[in-house]
Every structure is written in C-alpha cells, then in structure tokens.
C-alpha cells in the first residue's frame, strides 16, 4: 500500500458508502428474478420452493407475445426515425452557421421537460381532431417525439467530439457533401448513432403514458403488464417477463458501454 499515489490511497468509509449505494440501486431490482422462481402466486417471504412454471407459462402466453412484438416494432421504428432526425439536426447544429441556432436547439430539446402526460393528452387531442385512428402508428409517432431530444443530445456530443478538418479533408480529396457524409461523417459518428438507437429503443420500449393515451386496439408491453397487474395470479408471469427484460437490458447496456469506450478510444486519436 505504500507505493500508492496520494490521490489513490484507500478510504474505508467511502468503500462502505459505495456498497450501500449499489445495494440501494440494485436490491429492489433483484427481487424480480428472485420471485420469478418462487413457487407461489404471492410475492412474499418465505419462499415456497423453486419453480420454472412462470417461465413456461410465459412461453405460451400469446397476448404477451403479441404485446412484446408490438413493443419491439414500435421501439425499432421510433429509434430509427428519431436517430435519423437526430443525425440531421446534430450535423446542422454542429457544422453550419444557422441564424437563431440556440433557440432552435432549445425548441428541439423542450420535449425533455414537458411532462409525458401533457404531451400524451395533447397528441391525443391532435390525432382525434385530425381524424387519425389510434393505433401502433400513433404510439410510434408519440415515441419519436419524445426520443428526438435524447437522440440529439447523444449525437451532438458525438459530432462535436470529432475534428471538423476530417470533413474538410474528405472534401479536399474529391468528395462532395453527399460522399463526405457517407464516407467520413457517418462512419465517424457511428458509435454515437448506435448509442442513440439503443437509447431511443429503450425509451420507447418502456414508455407507458404516451402509449396509454395513444393506443388503439393493440397494446404495447408496458400497457399489457399494467393490465395484468389487476389479476393476482398473473403477477408471477409478469415477474418472469420482467426478469427476462432485465437480462436483455444488461446485455444491451454492456454492449453500449463497450461501444462508447471504443468510440472514445477512436476519437482521442483524432487530435495529434
């Protein structure tokens, strides 16, 4: 311990604090997989026994599958569209001299602070006024709306992170704006694009309020789960589903972090 730098020397109270912090974050979440294997429809201690019944039930639960597929479809489209808008907006904001740039960016970021319930009601009024029937499309629309600010924030950071002379070099080497975008800008922004896709997908995937207002006959997974909670015997099935989603989320987050780190390693070489 002697040859540890002053700034790195161990600190016991801080270690303890870190443990408490992690417990606070993760213990509630860990109850989900724990009780999903409990052989009882009631979520209480003590455990009755180990079972995989709930997972087996989940595999046969057709409405759940439908809701899951709906959610994946809505989230995929919302993530793609929001990220596309995010790319164009971030490119414009970071590369061109636009008059009134700050108010424009502010306006795009505003949905971040508008409560979802207000946006939901507003959109509901709008689409019903326009005579558009409620469906997965209207949910997708709402999710695109709330995802764009997140996509933009992610992508602006990425676009600002790399040297503008890269794009100038591409132009210098014979590429017009179109080719420059496809051969330099997009590949270099790729980690940001992927991060934005994952982020927007996650936002859409667990979004409830907007989906609740804008859903037609087909529901997304959060709405399905909400309706299931009214029937106590369905609860363990929801826990099993939750455990599965949790596992997938962890994998996705680790993947995103790995990408982000690779992105940083890549951009640090951009400077000399």
């Amino acid at each position, binding site marked *: 311990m002697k040859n540890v730098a002053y700034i790195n020397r161990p600190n016991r109270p801080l270690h303890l604090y870190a443990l408490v912090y992690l417990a606070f974050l993760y213990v509630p979440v860990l109850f989900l997989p724990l009780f999903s294997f409990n052989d009882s429809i009631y979520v209480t201690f003590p455990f009755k026994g180990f079972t995989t019944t709930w997972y087996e039930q989940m595999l046969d639960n057709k409405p759940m599958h439908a809701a899951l597929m709906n959610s994946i479809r809505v989230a995929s489209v919302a993530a793609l569209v929001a990220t596309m808008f995010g790319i164009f907006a971030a490119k414009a904001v970071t590369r061109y001299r636009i008059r009134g740039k700050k108010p424009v960016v502010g306006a795009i970021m505003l949905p971040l602070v508008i409560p979802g319930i207000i946006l939901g009601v507003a959109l509901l009024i709008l689409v019903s006024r326009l005579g558009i029937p409620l469906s997965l499309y209207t949910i997708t629309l709402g999710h695109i709306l709330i995802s764009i600010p997140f996509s933009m924030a992610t992508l602006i950071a990425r676009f600002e992170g790399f040297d503008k*002379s890269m794009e100038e070099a591409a132009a210098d080497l014979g590429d017009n704006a179109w080719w420059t975008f496809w051969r330099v800008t997009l590949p270099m922004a790729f980690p940001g694009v992927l991060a934005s896709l994952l982020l927007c997908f996650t936002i859409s995937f667990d979004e409830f309020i907007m989906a609740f207002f804008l859903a037609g006959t087909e529901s997304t997974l959060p709405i399905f789960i909400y309706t299931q909670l009214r029937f106590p015997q369905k609860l363990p099935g929801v826990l099993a589903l939750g455990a599965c989603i949790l596992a997938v989320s962890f994998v996705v987050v680790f993947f995103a972090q790995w990408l982000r780190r690779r992105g940083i390693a890549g951009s640090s070489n951009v400077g000399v």
Partner: protein
Amino acid sequence: MSKDDGYIKIERLSKHFDSVVAVDQVDITINSGEFFSLLGASGCGKTTLLRMLGGFEMPTAGEIYIENVPMSGVPPHRRPTNMVFQNYAIFPHLNVRRNIAYGLRAERLNAAETARRVGEALELVKLQGFGERRSDELSGGQRQRVALARALIRRPKVLLLDEPLGALDKKLREEMQLELRALQQSLGITFVFVTHDQEEALTLSDRVAVMSQGRILQMATPEEIYQRPVSVEVADFIGQMNFIDARVIDIGNGNTVLDTAALGRIRAPTLSGLTQEGAKIVVAIRPEKLRLSKERPLGTGNAVQGVIKNTAYLGDRRHFYVAVQGWDKPLAVAAQEVQESGSRSFEPESPVWVSWTDDSVILLDAS
C-alpha cells in the same frame, strides 16, 4: 527551375470574419514548381489565406486564379489543390492504405490499379509495409507522411501545407524539412507552405511572404528577406537583430551618414526613398555582423567601446551582450565557437570593442 509565369495569382484578396480582418487586400503571384512559404506569427492570416486557396473559406473580396481559372465558387473537391492539414486529419476509421486511397474514388480505378497507386504513394513517403496499420498505431512523423501521401496520390497541381511539421520534435522536423524539399523538387509540384517558424521558411522556400495582421510585409527570396528586410517588423521576426535609433545627417551618393545613439556617427548603404536629412530612422545590424575584440581594431573607424554584460552559449556560437554608452539595450554580438579559445577569454564586465563594416548596416523606416 521556376519560370515567372504567375501560375497562382492572388489579387486583392480579403477575408473578414465579422469585424475582424483576417486577410487584407493581399496580392501574390506564385510560379509553377515554386516552394512558396507564408510566414507569420499566429493570427497573422496565413492559415486563412491557405484555406481560401483550398476552398475552405470564401474570400470577402478579391480573386484567386490557378492557371488563369478564377477559383471563386469552385468547391474544394473540384480544385486542383490538395491540402496537408495541420493535425493531418487522418481518418481514424480507416487504415493507412484506405486513407491514402481515399481520394481515388472519383477515378474509378480497378482494385489492381488502386493497389499500385497506393503502393507508389507509400513508397514516395517511405511507408512501405505500413498499409494495414490503424491510424492510432502511427507516430506523429508517420501520420504526417500518410497525410502527405494521401494528398499527393491525387496528383494535385498545387499542394497546400498548413504547418505540417509543427507537431514534430526538432530532430524529426529537420529531417522532414529535407525530405519535403527533395520531394517537392522531384515532383515539380507547386507547394504553398504555411509556417510560423522562420528558420523553417528560410530553409525550405524559393520565396517567402512575411505576413502580419492580414497584410504582406515582404515577399522575396529567403536571402533577401534575411539580408535586406524592408521593415523593423520583418527584421525583428526573422532571426535576431540589433535595432538602434538614428538620425540622418547626410544623404550622399550610395552612402548615407547617420548619427546613432549607440554607435556614434556611422555610414551605411542608402535606403531608397530616403530623402530628408535630419529624419529619424532605425539602424539594424545582425549579431553575426558585429565583431568583438579586446583592443581597438586597426584600420576602421567603425568601432565602439563597451562592457560585456551577459553571455549566452548556443552550442555552435556564443552571444555576448555588450552595453555601450548612450543606448539602454545591450548589443548582441555573435561569435562562432570555432574561435573558442578567443571568445572564452571575454569575461563578463570586461571592456571590449565592437566593430562592423559599412555594408552590414541596414537602414529601416522608423515608423
């Protein structure tokens, strides 16, 4: 080697950034095959001028002609120029080979021809075997070579270089200077080179334009800029110089007599345009044009007595700072270390004589 053919003509070129005038009505003519340097401190407008040549900045006024074709409105990808960027701008998502091949897209070459051209370019910059390296596996010097190869593979008529050696350490920089010069001479491409390093500009260039505050102070060969600077600013920027206030006594035929603060009454080659006797003027003299001796030198009236205040050892030579009467700044006198046995014997605080020849004195406008 280079004819006076006005290959690149820059006419009354200006660039304003809002209220800041970066380039101010600049006129330059660059010949084909010339190694032309833009030299100046940071913020003098040299990089902006280069970027206008490359098409990255639009001029506020004026015009650039390359082979008599006006360049305004011509985007970078259609110009006969290529640029080596200051930070090299190596694409981090591509390896060396693909970086270098980047500019060949429009030529629609087949794979074999592309490989041949890339191989040639790698050989040109002595990077054979580095084709599959990632950009983050390269040293500063190697990155610089990749940037050079990437620009040259397009066979540009004009190569623009924005302080390409600035990030390299001194030894590597001197090596690259020689290589760059050899490359330019063998390819016969016109180089426009931006630098703040006066030594580099003098070493490399056929001609140098010294810039300050968006204007060109002097445009001439390195020798002329060093030997006959036209203003105090240029003389100060290039190398070391002693400046002494003086007053014109008599303007004769070829020679001017002056009264100086530090050197007494001296003679110097006439400054053209100088007509007024009694005018205030600045006398400039290089440290290496001054001689140091213990005794009053015989056979010359050009000598003044002083006291050594300070010495600076510079390896190949030694600078003595000699205080003389009537002038508050000590004179810098350079002595080659070949005469080491002689120069070491000059102790601080010892009285010495400083002498010079008439033709080593440069007259400059005082304004």
